[in-house]
């Protein structure tokens, strides 16, 4: 097998996610009357928190579990951040670091409950999720908190805007048009995810998801890998919370929103090509999975009124079509099943 052929074969899920995204987002961009960099920025803005939450979910799925606490944890870090970050520059930094640490700590706790309590991840996190949500409600009984508007604005726009707001630079040319969201994402992927993947601990997460028993017998520290996975997941959820805080400038212990993020994160992971059985995939696929999910809803905003398909955008039919498109997207993976030759391979 050539290297290219192997890459395609081993990354079929990722490639499918990218293709789906290209098709759906492409349609949106074409239909959008004023598509341009500011629209890209806006799309990035509305997607980044979901991307981070999806990445958090990916960690749990990689080790063969599911994390139902990612949404509540995002909410908790958001509420925490909104309290600490309401202030001058220094407190913002403290809030960011604190919220990320809180996320990681909560993830660590998830990992410990799962590993030492020997509780299935999905149930353990169902419970810890409730606890995190409760804590968020204690921190923020009602929505509020005010992060410095300039800081919030500057860090959720492009590089130029960042410079302009603080008078650091005037115009960086084309580089200046780079959205901050892309920078944040690149930083997290480049400085956290890729290095983590290249450690024994990180590879251990794949090993544990692939076959826990075999990983143990191979002399891997299974517990440590699992805890690491959930801790990193918590960190990613913390990233989502921090970004949400910057974006909203406030905190909101919103239970329905937390639940929605959790459920969507699972969809993002699956569309991104990570197997729910664990052991394959990764957060890069999830990024595209989350983008696909978001783009589906973008479409409804741009379908022109007179178009043949405009009934799709009928406000009272939208939820139906959203569901159908989601079903269709996740069923695309079924193409593999229909082509499967050895039916035994369906069961692993």
């Amino acid at each position, binding site marked *: 097998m050539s290297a290219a052929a192997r890459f395609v074969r081993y990354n079929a899920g990722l490639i499918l996610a990218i293709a789906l995204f290209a098709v759906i987002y492409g349609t949106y961009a074409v239909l959008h009357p004023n598509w341009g960099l500011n629209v890209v920025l806006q799309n990035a803005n509305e997607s980044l928190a979901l991307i981070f939450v999806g990445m958090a979910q990916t960690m749990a799925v990689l080790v063969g579990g599911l994390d139902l606490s990612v949404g509540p944890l995002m909410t908790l870090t958001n509420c925490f951040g909104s309290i600490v970050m309401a202030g001058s520059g220094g407190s913002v930094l403290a809030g960011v670091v604190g919220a990320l640490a809180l996320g990681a700590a909560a993830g660590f706790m998830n990992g410990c409950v799962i590993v030492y309590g020997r509780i299935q991840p999905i149930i353990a996190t169902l419970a810890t999720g409730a606890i995190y949500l409760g804590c968020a409600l204690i921190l923020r009984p009602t929505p509020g908190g005010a992060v410095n508007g300039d800081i919030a604005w500057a860090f959720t726009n492009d590089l130029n805007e960042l410079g302009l707001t603080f008078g650091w630079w005037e115009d960086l040319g084309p580089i200046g048009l780079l959205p901050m969201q892309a920078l944040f994402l690149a930083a997290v992927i480049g400085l956290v995810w890729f290095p983590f993947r290249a450690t024994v601990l990180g590879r251990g997460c*794949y*090993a544990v998801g*692939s076959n826990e028993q*075999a990983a143990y017998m*191979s002399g891997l520290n299974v517990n440590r890998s699992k805890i690491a996975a959930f801790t990193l997941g918590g960190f990613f959820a913390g990233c989502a919370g921090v970004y949400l805080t910057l974006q909203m400038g406030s905190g909101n212990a919103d239970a329905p929103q937390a639940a929605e993020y959790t459920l969507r994160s699972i969809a993002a992971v699956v569309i991104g090509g990570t197997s729910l059985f664990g052991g394959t995939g990764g957060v890069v696929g999830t990024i595209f999975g989350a983008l696909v999910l978001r783009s589906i809803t973008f479409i409804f905003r741009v379908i022109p009124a007179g178009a043949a398909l405009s009934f799709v955008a009928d406000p009272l039919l939208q939820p139906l079509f959203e569901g159908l498109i989601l079903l269709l997207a996740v069923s695309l993976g079924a193409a593999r099943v229909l082509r499967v030759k050895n039916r035994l391979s369906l069961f*692993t």
Partner: protein
Amino acid sequence: MSLTPAPLLEMRGISKSYGGVKALTDVDFVARRGEIHAVLGENGAGKSTLIKIAAGVVTPDTGTLAVDGAPRAFASPQEATGAGIVCMFQELSLLPDLSVADNIFITSPPRTRLGLIDRRAQRRRAEELLARVGCEDIDPATRIRDLPLSRRQMVEIAKAVGRDPALLILDEATSALTAADVEKVYTILHKLRADGLALLYISHRMHEIEALADTLSVFRNGRRVDTFAKGAHSDDAIVQMMIGREFANVYPAKPKRAAPPPPVLQADRLTFSPGLNGVSLTVGKGEIVGIGGLDGQGQRELLLALFGVLAGVGGTVKIDGTARRIGSPADAKRPEIGMALIPEDRKTEGLMLPMSVAENITAASLGAVTKGVVIDRAGEADNVGRMVKEMQIKVGDLAAPVATLSGGNQQKVVIAKWLLTKPKIILLNDPTRGIDVGTKEEIYALLRRLADEGAAVVLYTTDYAELIGCCDRVLVMYEGRVTAELTGEAITETNIVSAALNLAAETAA
């Protein structure tokens, strides 16, 4: 090699029980440097338990363990590896979704200066290691999932060797290997012995022990019966020591036939990609037909295709002269077809491990004991009792999970499950893998009895001796085709091997 090599691992007074089962009772055991030490015993004799204790997977109830004279207690495989004890377990410890290279260096990969895994160096070293065990054909970037079992075992060996062990333990490491691969393993093990390693070798294949071992230990019922140098006892004496009784002829006599029996199963030019390039075979009533050849020549696909597991199989299948379409195991089970398959991996394909022995035995034949929609419990219990008796399944509590049986008995459960469906055609995929001689003998006798009672049996095995000893006819497969059909006196090791290597065609070309 000195006369009494230094003891590397010393175990003293080891006992281990699982609930009421005494897996090991007061065992003393010593492994020395520069020596291959074979451990023999029936299924459930305690071999795996012993080495799991040495490897830190299982903690003993009593007893001590010393490495190079220093007392040790391992809490995990990690610690054992740290002390130089590396084990290749019976149930492979490879990670299906990771690459070969990742697997080989799973715990201690080469690292870059930043402390991250150096993938390039890892790949290079994986290639070196694979070459060392004679598997240059395996690409280190391939996922384990995509390798056949025999290749996986070779990777597992490379992985073990790559850990620079002081004591290397192989628990039935060769059970799925073909003769050619086994040769390679011999070479490596001999070399490692020369390098001064201590080696423990567990196998149910006497000829491997013959070729490798310096010292042999025999276990029975959780006790070490004896330890002696190679050649001190004859094979028969060793087997007798293992099973604790006289042991005569392994294979039952083959019947003499004047005319070919009426065909039951006729497959014509079966094709399937990858694996089958037009396989035809006929199996007659009362016949045992062996399928041989190198590993991975389409034998597994053939059995799965016949049993309806594969989609997109070309060609035709006739049962008792009538063309039939078999689209699933459920089809294959129907009375007019009457087919049964003893699958390759009993743990994942044959059994529901946490379910009871009784439930496993009746899993394929519930339809027969169902009245309306209700299971007739009495009828079910009758069937189970009958089978346990007939197959001599050693089981205490029929309601206990089947996982608590030893391998041989688990295999009997799988066979019993299918016998309850009263099959006309029985397909077996390496049914004696990792099973002790005593149980093997019972299985051979059973197959012959079933054939005599009119069943058509297709037996795929990697063991030439089984093909020779058991089968009325042997079809040798090569690259998805039947390249030779051997009958009667022509079923010899030489013929099988030359057909397997497709020598005739090679020299003609």
